[in-house]
């Protein structure tokens, strides 16, 4: 760029500044989101402190009780249950896609996973409400329950787990595959003892992202979980997730009630933030496995 004209240099400078400002704006978006959540949540925090959300006995805004613990437990139970089911199924799907299915079937299967990933959560909710809940209700009325929420969430995050696992598994150096094959290891051992350990970090970070998605999911959970605020003690208990609580009550909430819903939003953001951070750490720490084959 020895002899670039001053005019185009100036354009470059302007462009750089404008785009930099946009970048800053995007970074500020997070600040803005957190600021507005805090601003709206402030009254209730100010009057009772942060701990009131954890100390209060249950969630009864009419009685000025804003205990979120039952809903936090419910959210965690749902996300945990969903990831426990979705992780093996999702990883198995990825293995099927990469190592078991003939190319034509693999192509169709990948399409199916993409399709599943594209189904809106409200449609899963609709399906859960009209198909799944009545089935569960035959075992235990009314059917809207933790179990229904877990099953619907599982379906929703299987594609996330599967597609991130596919990416992680296909990044495993082919030298490892060849080495394992040359030792006469069976396909199962090759996969379980060599390839999955090599792709572990990618799979785990994908699972964390899927967990974050399950934690953040609102509509499907709202539609099938029954929405009773209680600490879940059985799979058939109707429960209310933190997200569903916001969707259910936000429109009706006033003053402290509304403020505590914003506090719940803030809490959700923090949890997801933490999960994203752990996921990125894991991916970074895994550089060595994928780098050695270079």
């Amino acid at each position, binding site marked *: 760029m020895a002899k670039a004209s001053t005019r185009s240099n100036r354009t*470059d400078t302007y462009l750089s500044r404008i785009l930099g400002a946009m970048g800053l704006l995007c970074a500020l978006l997070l600040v*803005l989101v957190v600021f507005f959540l805090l601003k709206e949540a402030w009254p209730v925090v100010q009057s009772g402190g942060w701990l009131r959300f954890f100390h209060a006995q249950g969630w009864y805004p009419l009685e000025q009780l804003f205990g979120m613990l039952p809903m936090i437990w419910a959210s965690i139970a749902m996300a945990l249950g969903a990831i426990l089911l979705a992780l093996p199924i999702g990883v198995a799907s990825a293995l099927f896609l990469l190592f*078991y299915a003939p190319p034509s079937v693999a192509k169709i299967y990948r*399409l199916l996973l993409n399709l599943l990933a594209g189904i*809106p959560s409200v449609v899963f909710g609709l399906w859960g409400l009209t198909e799944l809940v009545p089935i569960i209700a035959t075992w235990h009325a009314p059917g809207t329950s933790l179990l229904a929420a877990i099953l619907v969430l599982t379906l929703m995050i299987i594609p996330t787990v599967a597609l991130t696992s596919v990416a992680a598994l296909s990044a495993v150096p082919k030298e490892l595959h060849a080495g394992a094959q040359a030792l006469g290891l069976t396909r199962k051992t090759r996969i379980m003892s060599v390839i999955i350990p090599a792709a572990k970090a990618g799979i785990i970070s994908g699972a964390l992202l899927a967990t974050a998605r399950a934690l953040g999911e609102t509509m499907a959970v709202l539609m099938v979980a029954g929405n009773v605020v209680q600490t879940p003690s059985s799979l058939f208990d109707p429960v209310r997730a933190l997200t569903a609580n916001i969707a259910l009550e936000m429109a009706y909430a006033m003053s402290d009630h509304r403020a505590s819903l914003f506090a719940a939003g803030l809490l959700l953001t923090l949890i997801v933030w933490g999960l*994203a951070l752990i996921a990125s750490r894991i991916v970074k720490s895994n550089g060595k496995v994928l780098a050695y084959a270079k």
Partner: protein
Amino acid sequence: MPSRSASNIRLADQCFSVLIMACAAFVTITLIWVLGDIVIKGASHITWSFITSEPSDAGRSGGIGTILVSTLLILCVALGAAIPIGLGVAVWLSEFTVQHSRFSNTVGTTLDVLAGIPSIVYGLFGNAFFSLYLGLGFSILSGGLTLACMILPIFIRTCESGLSAVNNDWRKGAQALGMSRSAAIWHVLLPAAAPAIIAGLILGIGRATAETAALIFTSGYVDRMPGSLLDSGRALAVHIYDLSMNVTGGDNAAYASAFVLITLIILLNTTAQSLIDRWFSQRIYAS
């Protein structure tokens, strides 16, 4: 005896294969169940007048014409805001910042966090910021802008990866010709990264079209034809939610709406997929 344990190992291998196949079959069957359910219950309800007419009787009869219009308007607002800003930031991240500098890393991390924030939280933010603070009320504008915030991070990340995948020789080639950076970006880099940009765009569209939670408190419930962007408008996903939760006898219309929504999204997804495929095959061809 090694032969016995060898056969045990072989048995374990076969069991494992069966397990994997079973999982794949499970996923396939469930998907067919969900989709089949929607196609069977939904498709029979679809007529031209359903797609074009206004809903009546709380959505039990009539169609989804006005709701489709609202959905598209919300989408347009979201994209109108997200595309220029998103492209700008992606270009800035990949071309104007030093890779892995502290500042660009911070922006990158921020984007990752933003991408992970649950949509309901965007809904809260949109309600507090656009509807109340900026005084836009329950409107298509505040709903669209809320969605713009939501899809911005994914869009930026996809564009950025597309831009940084552009062959570095082209940058050098443009520099060697004495092109300014701006011109190089406009004429060389953006066209080269176009497929990635389009793919990111369609991913964003897919997410925005499917969104419900972020719209309930921002664009509202009104199911009539919006007169301006400041009118409230009910998105298709919100309509499905309302029909299935709040309207007795609304299931048929809910399924039909779900069918329309999924068809819309599948169309967008397959377009994205074929674009990505084409992009990769081009890159392989080029290298």
